[in-house]
């Protein structure tokens, strides 16, 4: 399946929240929809889910206008909320059936997913008796109990501890391996960097970057090298300046060398080695997702 989001505009009270949002998502690939708080992620996903209608633009699934009610969709809204005083198993069945699952299928899925998030023992408990983090996991299960073909998760990592974040990552990977179409939004770049195939960055209601994460990293890391050495930044610059080194940046791990187009990394390494300089590491540089975001959209805070 292929979901195309084409030229979406949306305003509230004459304030333009989404400006020409366009990107694509394919099944079998993890798509991270990333942006700062208030960038327009939730508004985009809500428009996609038909919570409100966009002012302009279309959502197409395999070329057809996408209407959520015609497909099996799993949706984790940003506004978390289920029935606090209702038995967990009971309400999961209700939501699963509302989203088009049969009773038998939903019941099987409830047991499977509750087991996956290690909450099967709580099936007969009321939701309000669980901790916030566990309630969040129940919400994620809610989005999956109808065995959806499309999974739309708005900020699924918020409120989860590192261990549960790992569990969620595995779940998303499992869904992707089943060729489901998965979109999830996040403002926590480090969580999604490890397993995202595709990313779309939104900033102030506009898409600033979209594509394959590895390709973006390679493109952004072109003519850059990561070098770790005890040498000072100035000495390193003086040593390699004549061989095409343009600038040196530094992060917590090492120096990041920016070189001129056509500079041979072998020549640079050879120079360091022949000068008898200690080289702890020497590798191509791929910027982190955070770096890419800061570079593209400004400060992340």
């Amino acid at each position, binding site marked *: 399946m292929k979901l195309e989001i084409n030229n979406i505009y949306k305003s509230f009270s004459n304030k333009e929240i989404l400006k020409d949002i366009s990107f694509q998502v394919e099944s079998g690939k993890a798509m991270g929809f990333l942006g700062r708080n208030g960038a327009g992620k939730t508004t985009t996903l809500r428009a996609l*889910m038909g*919570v*409100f209608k966009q002012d302009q633009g279309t959502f197409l699934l395999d070329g057809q206008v996408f209407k959520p009610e015609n497909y099996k969709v799993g*949706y984790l*809204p940003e*506004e978390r909320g289920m029935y606090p005083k*209702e038995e967990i198993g009971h309400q999961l069945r209700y939501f699963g059936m509302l989203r088009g699952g049969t009773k038998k299928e939903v019941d099987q899925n409830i047991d499977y997913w509750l087991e996956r998030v290690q909450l099967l023992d709580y099936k007969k408990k009321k939701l309000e008796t669980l901790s916030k983090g566990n309630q969040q996991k129940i919400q994620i299960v809610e989005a999956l109990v109808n065995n959806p073909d499309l999974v739309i998760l708005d900020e699924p990592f918020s409120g989860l501890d590192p261990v549960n974040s790992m569990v969620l990552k595995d779940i998303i990977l499992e869904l992707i391996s089943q060729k489901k179409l998965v979109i999830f939004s996040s403002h926590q770049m480090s969580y999604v960097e490890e397993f995202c195939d595709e990313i779309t960055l939104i900033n102030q209601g506009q898409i600033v970057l979209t594509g394959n994460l590895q390709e973006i990293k390679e493109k952004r890391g072109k003519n850059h090298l990561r070098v770790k050495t005890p040498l000072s930044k100035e000495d390193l610059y003086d040593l390699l300046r004549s061989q095409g080194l343009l600038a040196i940046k530094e992060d917590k791990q090492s120096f990041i060398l920016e070189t001129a187009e056509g500079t041979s990394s072998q020549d640079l390494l050879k120079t360091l080695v022949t000068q008898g300089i200690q080289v702890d590491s020497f590798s191509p540089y791929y910027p982190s997702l955070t770096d890419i975001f800061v570079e593209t959209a400004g400060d992340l805070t």
Partner: protein
Amino acid sequence: MNNLKTVFQFEFRGLLKKKAFKITTILVCLLALIGTSIPTIMKAFDGGEDPSGEEPQDLGSIGMVVENDALGEDILEAMLPGFNLTFLEDRAALSKQILDGDVDTGYILLSKNAYISVVNNVTLYSGADFLLEQALRAYNENLALAELGISPQEVRETMASIEIESSQEVLGKDSQSNYFVVYFLIIVTFMIIMFYGNNVATLVAREKSDRTMEILITSTHPNSLIMGKVLASGFAGIFQASLIGLSVFLGYTLNKGNYSEAIQEFLKLSIDPQLLLVYAIFGITGYFLLLFLYGAIGALVSKVEDVPSATTLVTMFVMAAYFISLFTLNMPESILLKVASYVPFTSFMAMFVRYATTSTPLFEILLSYGILLGSTVLIALMSVKIYRYGTLNYGNSGNTITLIKKALKESKANPK
């Protein structure tokens, strides 16, 4: 609408599982059973004594002052059997006895056809007054007849032998015979609407404050959601009312033998199947109309606490229907009742009262029902729109009417 059944089942089961529902139903059913068993219970406490036994009844004590030798003491004692008579010297002694509470009532007999009754406090009715007056009248009649040379005995026998047979043919409705059942049904309807109306409004408002709404609204069409909720609450109310009704019926059937014949006859007159049918059709339609209104208003508030104030307007409609129906029960021809029987917010009760108490032409009933049904459908459609808009807009402020207008305007701009 595919999910209507799912929503209905979930909400209906949820309502039935509620402690408040279980406790109220059990308590009211028990009260109904006890209430209908009162004649049996009273009989059990009477210890099987026959009230019409030979024991002379003690009707109270009377203080009597006979002035001007009006009548002899023995004649007076014969006139007031069952009373404990004390003959006193003068008025002062009588007053003292009355004020001290030694006698219940006092009489000063001025002549054989004049008396003054003396009481401490005036109560509604004194049995002694009536009896004394009757006895004095009979005594004087006898004297007068005897003076004319006619035997009082013969006169009485002749009078008693004349009998007039009469019966009434009611062409229209006998409002008396339906009074009890109509009164009862109006109260039951009022209570169920107030209870379940607020229930629907709270159900919807709670989903909003729990933020469950976004999952629901993206899972299924709002039609199914609001319809499911209203139907579930509606049928829970009907179910509860049926259980209570069944308890009353069961209690009555079990204790029927101990009811006096008059009550049995009265109840038999009251339960007219056609009347119950009109009640059911109008009552249920009006009930759902109001539930839809309550549901829509529940969607307009942000917090459950705001439900009572927001639903005031609808509550006023229900109160109006209730009071108009109760007040006009004794004056079925009033214009107020006629008008109310066409206004959809009141007709579900008012037309029932009209039908029960007067001869209402069939076309008027059909016209009123047409208006009621049409309004119910319109309000149901409107409530879907308000629900769709209201549920996703938190922090609304303003009065209910403004919010409804805003919701309808927005829903036009943002159809699902």
